[in-house]
């Protein structure tokens, strides 16, 4: 079995550089970057997806912009105060913050991302039109909340779709163009509002109706958008290339049973160091980004007495500068990514830090022309932060999880950062004025930049982890197809930390079906933690856990239970206040409504341990230590697992009781359950098993036959062997 795992590891190490190149990271920053047009032509790609998503992004800005500009007129017409409007806007912000995750959840169920984008686009267009017919506050609440909810598709789905629609060598530019389309929206929306109000004399109602119709037209133009397929240009490409290399194709190892649920995906994403750091950085970025536009509006008004018209021109100027900056950034970012996925992140962090310093200088500037020039630079630097971070982020997360990553990004920027930023800047504004608030942005900006920059150090290894997962899966698929025997459970390269303290270091372990192995080691060696990683009670920071070939590394413990993995935790794993029979019923919770089956199983437990039957109505806390372990072991009798993980069964028990418990473990194993037995007592363990692992300081120091372990005096200190040597034949 270790041979197969070694073979997988060897293949993985051999293929990794090739796979990195497949994913666009060739390590060569100096090579010429072909024009995007050439890249598109090379792969026979259409510009339609980027245009369609760009149109949708532009259309999405209409309602937001129109509402921000026309809020006073809406207030006068409907007879509602600014406070009420602020409350309505807060509800919409809440909807915008909450919506991306459900969108990601919807997308998770299949490749319906493009359809979702179009449907939500139609809805928000209709909502924009109906905003023009609102006559009451609740109508306003309704349309804005629906608008916020449907806008969730933009932050959750657009960029994953773009990434999947373009090969890695054109991705940074595709993201830059998309970012540029948002800037176009920042020009078109104010221009459209200005023309409709000032030239065509529309009221706010007319503006919403016309913008809604324009939005609907844009959505219809984008309606031929189709999902390119999840991970088409990275994971799919890699898998296809592997198979093209002559590898045997086997059935997919992933099944519905082990497919990660929504919350498992979110948790798994936050375990990716780059994603975790970027999310924190995004939150700090949001402190600056979200309230900045509003505060800049007020700053221009109060400091420079700019009327709405000139302010509109100012923001259009910023958008134009932003588009120019993105045009320059795209190709450079491509080269940086090609060299190392961490380098665009570093560039993004530097741009963010420079932006906040320039904002502070602009706030202190005594001349309007200098303020305008500095804000231009801020726009040029700030606009590239998004694609500089999004490109690497989406490249290091598994493609199926990209909508979730995008959704989290939106939530961290808007929901977390935006909210904190609004409170933070309002507080500073009250105390030091609007200029002071803009200067104060330096603090979160620099902190955010530093956190973001730290993600640059992990991006490369996270990309390797993604590659490793694919290579390993393909190798296992190949082995499965060629009839190679695979272990029932295989832990590979497991690392785990409790906070800053790492306790497992690249642990490899495998168990075959029906096998019983022992996991030995001194106190604090990491045995129990490894067992928790196997059962899902703890999640590894690195490495994989595979059950019958399928990746269950991030599967919840209760789902692993349904797969047949049961853990008996160490230290009397019973519910003290509950009676014996209630404990058994609690263990049998996963048997669901099969009450009869549960009753039969409880009867079997009482047959196996008559002393429990005698104490069936007694609280578990009043049982002796041995009886409590019997009760804990009854869990296995109830659930009939295919893999039983037992932690420290014998600790502190009388030999007679230990013998009785071990007899039951033997019986379970004889009936087909594989067993991993964690023990401090070498003598007990080696009496039971053929194969054993020995752990020390979080690493496997020995793996092999139990008899061979007895010959390793360097590992087995006398304190362990005392008992065994007494019982071992001479």
């Amino acid at each position: 079995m270790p041979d197969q795992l070694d073979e997988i590891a060897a293949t993985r190490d051999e293929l990794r550089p090739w796979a990195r190149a497949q994913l666009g990271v060739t390590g060569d920053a100096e090579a010429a970057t072909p024009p995007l047009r050439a890249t598109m032509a090379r792969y026979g790609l259409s510009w339609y997806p980027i245009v369609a998503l760009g149109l949708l992004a532009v259309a999405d800005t209409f309602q937001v912009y129109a509402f921000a500009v026309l809020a006073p007129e809406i207030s006068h017409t409907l007879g509602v105060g600014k406070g009420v409007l602020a409350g309505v806007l807060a509800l919409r912000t809440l909807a915008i913050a909450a919506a991306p995750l459900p969108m990601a959840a919807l997308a998770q169920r299949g490749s319906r991302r493009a359809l979702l984008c179009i449907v939500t686009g139609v809805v928000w267009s209709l909502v924009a039109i109906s905003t023009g017919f609102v006559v009451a506050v609740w109508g306003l609440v309704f349309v804005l909340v629906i608008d916020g909810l449907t806008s969730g598709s933009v932050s959750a789905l657009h960029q994953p779709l773009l990434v999947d629609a373009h090969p890695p060598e054109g991705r940074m530019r595709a993201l830059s163009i998309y970012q540029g389309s948002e800037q176009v929206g920042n020009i078109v929306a104010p221009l459209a509002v200005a023309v409709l109000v000032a030239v065509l004399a529309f009221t706010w109602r007319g503006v919403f109706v016309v913008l809604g119709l324009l939005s609907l037209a844009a959505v219809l133009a984008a309606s031929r958008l189709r999902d390119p397929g999840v991970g088409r240009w990275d994971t799919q490409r890699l898998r296809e290339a592997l198979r093209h290399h002559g590898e045997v194709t086997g059935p997919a190892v992933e099944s519905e049973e082990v497919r990660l649920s929504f919350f498992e995906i979110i948790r798994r994403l936050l375990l990716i160091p780059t994603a975790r750091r970027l999310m924190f950085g995004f939150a700090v970025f949001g402190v600056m980004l979200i309230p900045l536009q509003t505060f800049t509006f007020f700053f221009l008004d109060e400091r420079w007495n700019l009327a709405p018209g000139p302010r509109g021109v100012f923001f259009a100027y910023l958008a134009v500068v932003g588009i120019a900056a993105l045009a320059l950034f795209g190709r450079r970012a491509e080269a940086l990514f090609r060299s190392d996925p961490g380098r665009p992140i570093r560039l993004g962090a530097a741009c963010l830090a420079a932006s906040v310093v320039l904002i502070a200088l602009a706030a202190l500037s005594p001349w309007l022309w200098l303020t305008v020039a500095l804000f231009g630079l801020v726009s040029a630097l700030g606009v590239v932060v998004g694609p500089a971070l999004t490109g690497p982020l989406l490249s290091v997360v598994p493609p199926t999880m990209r909508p979730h990553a995008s959704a989290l990004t939106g939530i961290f920027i808007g929901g977390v950062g935006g909210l904190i930023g609004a409170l933070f800047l309002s507080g500073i504004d009250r105390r030091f004025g609007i200029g002071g608030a803009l200067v104060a942005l330096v603090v979160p900006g620099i902190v955010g930049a530093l956190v973001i920059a730290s993600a640059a150090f992990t991006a490369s290894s996270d990309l390797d982890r993604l590659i490793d997962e694919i290579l390993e899966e393909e190798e296992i698929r190949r082995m499965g197809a060629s009839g190679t025997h695979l272990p029932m459970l295989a832990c590979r390269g497991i690392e785990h930390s409790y906070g800053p303290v790492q306790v497992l270091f690249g642990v490899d372990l495998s168990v075959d079906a029906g096998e019983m192995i022992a996991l030995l080691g001194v106190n604090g060696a990491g045995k129990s933690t490894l067992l928790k990683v196997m059962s899902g009670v703890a999640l590894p920071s690195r490495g994989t856990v595979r059950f019958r070939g399928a990746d269950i590394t991030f599967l919840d413990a209760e789902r692993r239970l349904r797969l047949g993995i049961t853990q008996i935790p160490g230290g009397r794993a019973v519910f003290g206040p509950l009676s014996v029979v209630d404990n058994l019923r609690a263990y049998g919770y996963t048997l669901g409504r099969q009450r009869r089956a549960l009753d039969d199983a409880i009867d079997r437990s009482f047959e196996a341990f008559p002393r429990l039957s005698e104490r069936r109505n007694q609280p578990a806390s009043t049982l002796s230590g041995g009886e409590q372990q019997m009760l804990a072991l009854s869990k296995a009798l109830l659930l009939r697992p295919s893999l039983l993980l037992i932690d420290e069964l014998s600790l502190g028990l009388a030999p007679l009781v230990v013998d009785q418990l071990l007899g039951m473990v033997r019986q379970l194993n004889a009936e087909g359950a594989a067993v991993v037995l964690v023990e401090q007592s070498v003598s007990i363990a080696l009496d039971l098993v053929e194969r054993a692992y020995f752990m020390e300081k979080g690493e496997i120091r020995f793996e092999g036959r139990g008899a061979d372990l007895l010959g390793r005096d360097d590992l087995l200190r006398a304190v362990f062997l005392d008992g065994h040597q007494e019982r071992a034949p001479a």
Partner: protein
Amino acid sequence: MHRRTTWVRWVARLAAVAWLSGCSLSGLNFREDTRVDVVAPADRSQVALPLTVEWTVRDFDGSFALFVDRAPQPPGRSVAWLFRNDDGCIEESGCPDAAFLQLRGIYLTDEPRLVIDTIPQLTGDDVRERHEATVILLNEDGERSGESAFSVEFEIEREPR
């Protein structure tokens, strides 16, 4: 499956009711109403107190309400509607009267001209003291006529304290 369909149907119905009850198809202004033009003060100008607000009118022979730094009542309502939950304003005692309204930045007039003697100072020394005056049309019953509103912004110059 059936339960889910029913649930979705009910949510859709509720959404439709909420949507429709908050919207209307009649009496809405989609194009700018040009019957009133505020001629003084000039938009975004600096003014001193007492302030004269003046407007020209055509095709309208009702009265006006002017609101300083506050939103007017919704269409079809009188200014009293704004104080319907104000325990200190009892209708039987003639509230809201002109003095009560002026204290709250509301002025009723038949003429297209009005002199405002006081406007509460905005807080914060470093903030430009920007105010907004909004004129609406009232019918013979004193209710807001249509949804048109005509606004002007101005900045007050005050003597240093």
